[in-house]
């Protein structure tokens, strides 16, 4: 049986359909989840998609974390449910305390959309197990508040525990501390990533290729084997 992966739609979510497509192309069954619904319909994993939840006017992800769906996500993530936050989803994960640190305004003050070279730093998470550590991939970034910040001690801890899962190569598109593009929680089931793997799943679409598909096949494989 294929795994069912939920994609939460908040008001202002934009990449929800893209995330669903990525799940489908990876071989899973996407399930649309609604922010007002605390019931996660028994999905095997959850994706918080990119976008501008609530317009992101106050602070990216600040309001979305209060959604009933998020209460369930936080609770079930604590019990090991794989959760992937992409871009705005990463911001929501930080706001809701599932991941440390915060995402602030890009250092150059502009929204930036470009194909970005990344190094997968750790294959030790539910969403990156299909890559090998050190592997280079190209995935698009597109964000205005993608600059990852955290206290030095937190950064050191993330590095020390191998919890930085992806790093920007070449130029750092938003000024992130230590070129961090994505991190995971200690257990490895919760991952936040600023670039958009769901936009790199078909060679025909965009210019980045299909390097991002691995995030979705990784989780599907880990769900089948566990």
């Amino acid at each position, binding site marked *: 049986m294929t795994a069912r992966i939920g994609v939460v739609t908040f008001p202002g979510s934009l990449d929800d359909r893209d995330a669903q497509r990525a799940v489908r192309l990876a071989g899973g069954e996407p399930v649309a989840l609604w922010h007002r619904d605390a019931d996660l319909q028994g999905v095997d994993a959850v994706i918080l998609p990119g976008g*501008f939840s609530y317009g992101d006017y106050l602070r990216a992800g600040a309001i979305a974390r209060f959604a009933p769906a998020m209460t369930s996500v936080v609770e079930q993530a604590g019990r090991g449910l794989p959760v992937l936050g992409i871009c705005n989803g990463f911001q929501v994960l930080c706001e809701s305390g599932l991941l440390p640190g915060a995402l602030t305004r890009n250092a150059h003050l502009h929204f930036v959309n470009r194909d970005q070279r990344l190094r997968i730093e750790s294959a030790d998470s539910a969403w990156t197990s299909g890559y090998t550590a050190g592997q280079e991939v190209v995935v698009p970034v*597109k964000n205005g508040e993608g600059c990852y910040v955290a206290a030095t001690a937190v950064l050191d801890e993330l590095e020390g525990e191998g919890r930085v899962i992806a790093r920007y190569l070449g130029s750092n598109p938003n000024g992130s501390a230590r070129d961090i593009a994505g991190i995971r929680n200690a257990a490895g089931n919760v991952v936040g990533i600023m670039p958009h793997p769901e936009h790199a799943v078909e060679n025909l679409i965009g210019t980045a290729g299909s390097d991002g598909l691995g995030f979705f096949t990784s989780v599907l494989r880990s769900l089948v084997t566990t």
Partner: protein
Amino acid sequence: MSAQPVDTVSHAASSPEVAQPYDELGLKGDEYTAIREVLGRRPTQTELAMYSIMWSEHCSYKSSKVHLRQFGDLPKGDRMLVGMGENAGVVDVGEGLAVTFKVESHNHPSYVEPYQGAATGIGGIVRDILTMGARPVLVMDPLRFGDADHPDTKRVLPGIVAGIGGYGNCLGLPNIGGEVVFDPSYQGNPLVNALCLGVMPVDRIQLSAARGVGNVVVLLGAKTGRDGIGGVSVLASATFDEDGPARRPSVQVGDPFAEKLLIEACLEMYDAKLVEGIQDLGGAGLTCALTETSAAGRSGMRAHLERVPLREASMEPHEILASESQERMLAIVTPENLPAVLALAEKWGVLATAIGEVTEGDRLVVTWHDEVVVDVPPGSLADDGPVYERPMTRPADLDALQSAAMPAHPSTGELRDLLLRMVASPNLCSRRWVVEQYDRIVLGDTVLAWPEDAGVVRLSEQTGLGIALATDGNGRFARLDPYAGAQLALAEAYRNVAATGAIPIAVTNCLNFGSPEDPEVMWQFAEATRGLADGCRALATPVTGGNVSFYNQTADTAINPTPVIGVLGLLDDVARRTPMGFQEQGESVLLLGETREELGGSEWAWAEHRHLGGRPPAVDLERERVLGEVLVSGSRDGMLSSAHDLSDGGLAQVLVESALSRGVGARIVLPEALGPFVQLFSESAGRALVTVPRSEELRFTEMCSVRGLPCARIGVTDGSSLEVQDVLSVPLEELRTAHEATLPALFGPLAGDTAPAHPVVTAPATGLQLG
């Protein structure tokens, strides 16, 4: 309730002598007389406000109507489902799908307040598309600015680009193309045109007609404030002595989040078949929506103005009707469906208010706390506005311009440096600085976007059905010859679309001109519309809609006439799209079409000599059609590796762009005729550069000769530099540096570059609308 007594219909009937400030509202004396005749009395203050808006140039098209009729007379083809006149034209693309697309201007607001002006330009055109029943799926932004190094361009351009991005990105619409053009004629009057395209099942097309007595008129979306009430604010000061707070018309501020919710709510309503008619609120706000829906339905309507949710309680009836607050729609709903509509609105957090009903008869009646302030035949506002045949004269300076001597040609030894200067010049340099601020990939169907000739978007994942879109306009060509200029713009957009392998099927346009009261401008306008209509007939691409923007001028100087033409193309399988860049080493480089010495109005003459004179390149639409056929067939039969149309900057520019795309160089041998300078920089129309694998070369060249299309093998892709034999050789890295450095040097570094950021002072108050 309003503090002042309002001017009711009965009061107006009994006080014919009251003097009214019609001329301050932009109405002519005879127009005011016509209003009194229509009503059989003087208009109330509120009615006067409504007529002044609806009979303005912007809403009534009073100067352009007689010319635009030519577009309506064009053969419709068998794809057009809805033509001009509705909010946007609708084209059948097969597989049960239809697309609707349109381009509109937001020039003046974007000069006053670049960020918000451009942002609300996107918001407005997206609502036009939504109104037709379609899900908006992409935007494009043809932009024009003053000189790149003019200080005011530093204020205007970053704000406009941030505004387009801020709104479009937050709506989740990929930006798949546009234009950035610099010319001093746009100093003080930048052009911000915005295009949107939407997709729908054919049976979901919505119309704006309000029908069915007893049906409810529902206002959806944002609260109404004193946004953009413009000229109408004189009514306040003309009637009341004290200048209350916030009488000044205010800039419209966009709320893309509210619009995103409005889109999702409306689409769910359409799918559930809950609305009988729908109309967006754009320019002229409620006035326009109420009159157009009732006029289109040949129905009566009653609106209770005090029910409209307001941002400021002190607003007067005429202000509520004139407000251009963004992110609002007007839906006509049966009483049975009203609860479901309200529930869907609630689901998406959209305000929904029943403000009126469709009535017997044919009067639009607006009440304010039960007092009748408007009682008019809606058609008199929406359809029967004044129509002018404005006087026209050929510009006095045109002969001198056309016969101006061209600057001397450079020697062959100078061409290497010239090439590097040209690819770095503001109009030819890389647009990366602009487009990196736009989300180009959201929705996951963008097949081609910047820097390709046309944007290509997939409509169906199952079949690969897709569309291509390009916009073009060349104000210098149109200045030298508006008839030819309009056709050259059409031909270029057509060629761009065909270069991707798509069959061009329909046209939209945004006609940006100076004042119609200037006979020379009016002549330019008439010539351009005639040229466009003739061109569309020749290419069998019907005009589905468009927009006219007049009064683009500073003091007495008009902008270069700038018809911006958008061409829609169709691909039955986007996997067959042809990219613009060289793909592989060792492929044949073929030049299609014919090069003549055509440098009048060229980028070379302008960039090197600030010279604008001579005649624009000759137009041969039959040649364009054949070239298009060859490009489409070449893509269908899998013969082409790349195709790139020639336009601004000529062959030189296209060689550089094609080589930089994937870092594949070329060795070129130019034809002997005309000499290397003309071969490289002439802007003859009807040409494209293609690459084909050796194995396909013969088949392809035979196809060209069968169709009578000149095709010359001019070289081979090779190495990592651009070499033109006996003329120049430049490593691609040197070209790339020159091509990419210009805009960052002018407007600030790109993301990730080490130099400090430039301050963004035009962003919204929070400065945080970045995502």
